[in-house]
């Protein structure tokens, strides 16, 4: 086993792929000398040079689009979009081009492109640097969406994303970069579309993504003390979604909470709730609970920010509601 931070794990997956494969290269804003605004690509310029660690202008449409064109021409580019909020600037290229080229061509084209981005609340960056937008992309046939929560997962899933023949939007969470855990010595891909059970439990299933995986694990510990056994499942890949694993867990526990940092309304949790109630209706002993951000942009003032986005206590409260112990 080796110990890596989430940040190092991302870097490790990219570097290994670039050592192995000339077709893999990265481009993005401030990723070369500066090493990325989150320090993820530090040292990569020295190892791989400016041709394969391409610093770009602030130009999201062009860099995402150039990634598409390079992928179509046989490369496996990784494009870093500095903040997921800035994905808004590249939406046309992602949604109209990357996601549809294969389809509109009747299967002639592959777009093996990985778009890495990050963000999230928890450090008061304000409304244009803090929202979680992963759900927007779940509505787009042709894209894959990945959102890992641990160093091991982020490394293995990024590896698989790079070698997937489809455009993958890969979300990292700002507050997770410093997490350090054991990862396997050997870098192996983790299959996209497979959930991970982080903690087994009997009474309630919490399906959580990103930062909320960690909040949910904290909530589960507290629930234990109140005599409630919580199972925490991280889908890790949101599109395609491991429905089977999620439904199997709920069939075992008979109760379900979905937790994510993004706005609750019309969110990922709504779709999961629909899937679970449809496939496990007769197993449910309580309404499915959703935990997410309140319906507002992410505010600046720390007290307001903390109020808007969910935390462990929100997950715990939802868990308790499902077992009637409010």
């Amino acid at each position: 086993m080796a110990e890596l931070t989430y940040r190092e794990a991302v870097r490790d997956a990219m570097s290994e792929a670039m050592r192995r494969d000339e077709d893999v290269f990265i481009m993005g804003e401030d990723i070369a000398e500066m090493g990325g605004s989150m320090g993820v690509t530090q040292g990569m310029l020295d190892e791989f040079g400016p041709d394969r660690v391409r610093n770009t202008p602030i130009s999201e449409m062009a860099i995402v689009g150039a990634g598409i064109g390079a992928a179509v021409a046989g490369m496996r580019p990784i494009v870093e979009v500095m903040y997921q909020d800035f994905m808004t600037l590249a939406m046309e290229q992602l949604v109209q081009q990357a996601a549809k080229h294969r389809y509109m061509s009747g299967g002639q084209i592959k777009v093996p492109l990985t778009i890495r981005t990050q963000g999230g609340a928890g450090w008061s960056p304000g409304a244009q640097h803090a929202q979680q937008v992963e759900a927007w992309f779940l509505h787009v046939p042709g894209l894959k969406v990945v959102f890992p929560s641990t160093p091991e997962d982020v490394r293995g899933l990024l590896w698989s994303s790079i070698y997937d023949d489809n455009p993958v939007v890969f979300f990292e969470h700002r507050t997770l970069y410093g997490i350090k855990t054991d990862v396997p010595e050997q870098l192996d891909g983790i299959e996209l579309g497979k959930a991970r059970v982080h903690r087994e439990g009997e009474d309630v299933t919490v399906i959580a993504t990103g930062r909320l995986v960690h909040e949910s694990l904290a909530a589960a510990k507290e629930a234990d003390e109140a005599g409630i056994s919580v199972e925490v499942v991280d889908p890790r890949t949101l599109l395609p979604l491991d429905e089977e694993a999620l439904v199997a867990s709920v069939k075992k526990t008979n109760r379900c909470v979905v937790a994510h940092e993004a706005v609750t309304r019309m969110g990922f949790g709504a779709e999961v709730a629909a899937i679970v109630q449809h496939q496990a209706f007769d197993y449910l002993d309580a309404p499915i609970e959703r935990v997410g951000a309140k319906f507002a942009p992410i505010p600046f003032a720390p007290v307001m920010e903390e109020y808007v986005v969910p935390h462990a206590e929100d997950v715990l409260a939802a868990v308790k509601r499902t077992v009637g112990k409010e």
Partner: protein
Amino acid sequence: MATLEEKGQTATAERLKDFLREMLLIRRFEEKVEERFRAGELPGFLHVAIGQEAVAVGVCRALEDGDVIASTHRAHGHTIAKGTPPNEVMAELYGKVEGCSHGYGGSMHLYDIERGNLGANAVVGGGLPGIVGSALAFKMRGEPRVAVAFFGDGATNIGTFHESLNLAQLWTVPAVFVCEHNRYAESTPSSQHLPIEDMTKRAEAFDMTAMTVDGQDVEAVYDVAKKALKHARDGKGPVFLVADCVRLSGHYVGDPQVYRPKEEIRELRQTRDPIELLRRRVELSDDEWDEMDREATRIAEDSVEFAKKGTDPKPEDALKNVYA
């Protein structure tokens, strides 16, 4: 023995005849498209490039094997000129499996990867960033290939145009940006959408080499495209190529063109039709012209027959090709 000069003249004459044949084929093909659309046989909506054939043929004939293009919503001419058989283009317009996008694309999404057509794009300016990326891939791998984007003057107002030219020049990728400057953005004349008259100023901001050509003169287009492609292929950076051209049709098939004086089209048809201009230059006999015309018409008619006999996709095939 023919002198070198005479041989050269013969070669040029043959080349011009080849251009004429191809332009006429595209013209007859698109007239057939209009006719079949009006007969109610073609689903969706269509844009023809009648009047702009010289740009498609001049540029595509100047390409080398391995070069790639991205096209626009007005894509039939580019696609045929890049080598896709008219049968496959027409079959696509009929939504058939035999179509060049197997019925998944339609008129505005003609693809032919094998022949280097990376796709026509229904988003104005949507294909430009991709061309920068493909050109970047060629450069990184040291391949002597060029990526060419077609687009109209209307696209020079959208962000992708400026971001793409900026990045292409910054990284000196082998790309050629062909602006088909027909002076209409859909229905809007350039006086209402362009703040500049000289389009090469668009490239000046990026210090990009710009070239301008009479887009109704196929020989001139071919010559300038050769120059632009060589510049890009030699590693000297991308080129912005402005082809001043004339759209003799409406924006879409059925467009009553209320925004355009009737006399303008009438006059342009008489004076600026690239096929008529070329026909006069190559001095074809009436017999030769008639034969060429009959052949083009026959190919266009055959493509309709081919398409009508084509296979309808199975409805459930709509769920294929979403992912690789």
